[in-house]
């Protein structure tokens, strides 16, 4: 099997050749590795690469797997699967390209008006959730063409709070 896997902004090509039900050869740009493995539970697998043991804890969601190794999470996407599926979902680790709250929130403050020129990183809307406030920022330079949030209102992830027309020379 050949896979195109994406972590953050890096795509790597890997080929896996199962030898039996507990070992395989893996070929990639990083070289060839022989791995043995076993499933410990639905969410845990044990991998041994060249004698070194590692536990990987895995949650699967829409073609993306969250994989924790040594306490650090990796968000790994199967590029082929995402392309096939069409219904591409934002990987959890990516920088948002839209002005939408990461979770259900209350709007505390709207800091721009329609027609304003905004710079990438500029604060647009302050939202509050779980006793904490955060500022949603402009993902790129552009002009505000619409605002869909009012102070005190409830907003959900996926709702675009501010429309921004991207500057063409950005």
């Amino acid at each position: 099997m050949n896979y195109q896997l994406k972590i953050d902004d890096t795509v790597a090509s890997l080929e896996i050749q199962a030898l039996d039900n507990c070992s395989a050869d893996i070929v990639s740009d990083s070289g060839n590795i022989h791995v043995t493995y076993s499933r410990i539970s639905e969410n845990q697998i044990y991998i041994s690469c060249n004698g070194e043991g590692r536990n990987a804890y895995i949650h699967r969601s829409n073609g993306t797997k969250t994989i924790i190794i040594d306490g650090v999470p990796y968000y790994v996407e199967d590029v082929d699967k995402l392309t096939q599926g069409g219904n591409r979902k934002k990987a959890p680790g990516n920088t948002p390209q839209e002005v939408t709250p990461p979770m259900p929130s209350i709007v505390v403050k709207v800091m721009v008006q329609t027609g304003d020129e905004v710079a990438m990183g500029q604060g647009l809307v302050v939202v509050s959730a779980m006793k904490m406030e955060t500022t949603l920022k402009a993902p790129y330079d552009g002009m505000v063409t619409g605002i869909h949030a009012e102070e005190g209102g409830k907003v959900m992830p996926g709702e675009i709070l501010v429309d921004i027309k991207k500057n063409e020379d950005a």
Partner: protein
Amino acid sequence: MFTKILIANRGEIAVRIMRTCREMGIATVAVYSDADSRSLHVLSADQAVHIGDAEPSKSYLDIDKIIDAAKSTGAEAIHPGYGFLAENAVFAERCESSGLTFIGPPPQVIRDLGDKITARKIMTAGGVPVIPGTEEGIDDISAVSADAAKIGYPLLVKAAAGGGGKGMRVVYDPTDLEEACASASREAAGAFGNGTIFIEKYLSPSRHVEFQILADSFGNVIHLNERECSIQRRHQKIIEETPSPVMTPELRQKMGEAAVAAARASGYVNAGTVEFIVDSQGTFYFLEVNTRLQVEHPVTEMTTGIDLVRYQISIAAGEKLSLVQKDISAKGHAIECRIYAEDPEQGFFPSPGIIHYMKEPSGPGIRNDCGVYTGFPVPFEYDPIVSKLVVHGNTRKDAISRMIRALQEYIILGIKTPVPFLIDVLKSEPFVNGETYTDFIDTHFSDWLMDRKNMHTAQIAFLVDDMLPLKKQVSHGDGILSTPSPWQTLGNWRL
């Protein structure tokens, strides 16, 4: 002693209080909102009463509903935990007038200490050193500059009410003073319904060092040593420890006496915490009193061997403190890390969601006070703390190594947590050296990035996970087979 206690809280702290109640043979009543019907605190109680909507004002902050729940279940006392109604003098009064014991200090003490200006006056009268600042609230902002000049810059403008960094401004330049006072007052008025502000000298770098106290209703007051809580983000603690790296036996003696004096000066009864600022010269100043159990109380429990909740309950039941100051000795070093549902890569923004999988660390010297479980949806309506991970070691160095090991063993899938961030903080040189000032994270970790050094292993894990059937066909020599599962019929989903 009480036979039944209602816990007016949720999540990990409610569960923690119920555990001690169970050990004391006291029945427990949980209250829960619509968002919490399957919460761990409901599953951990002997009885559970539904009290309303997910919105806190309609459930956990609704005094009438909580009093009703206590009366209808025959509870004799209410433990407020922390947050919600824990420092609400009106609630404490309502408990008393309803014939219920409020497990905490008397209402007047809560009221006095809840106002920072009143608290400063009480402490000054009691001989406890306070940070140089204005004695009264500022009525006339335009007249404040003389006071400010006397105190000296930089200054901190602070709200008399509330907390959590709201209504607070640092002022470096006299020309910014008026505007800072005005905006702080506006913010405080909006957040707490009280715009009173005052100014203090701003001490930086400084440490946040607090003393745990226990006081009974017979006038006995002791302290249980200090906790250092300087590691904060957004004015909220994330790592606490005891002893403080800055502490010496002499300083502990002096600060402990000040903490006891603070408790006496305010007429304190029950468990409380006297917070101090310690500046870079080792001079300490009173900051405020938290009139409740602290989130970080377990580090004190692990070093002193004393169950603080047990003492809160026995003091509230009118018992005399069975400990005197010389009974208190602390052994080893304890560290707590707060595990929040939050994203350390996105400015610690909350990250609620379903816990798809959780594996708690265990073994020597580890305690995890957890309020969630695999399959539980962490609600977005409440504080995002999911657990307090605490370790104990013989030395600070041992405790740090143990905490790193525990964090690496702690797996939570489905929500984001600060675990990778905490590992990096604990491994960092400034932390290991005890350079724990309140600006620690801004100074050393403002540009933190997650170190994804096992990226290749993660890719391999992705592939291997695809290869392996989701549930192993279990067949064992003892002739016992697990219940056939639909997973077994699935096999690989891609081969």
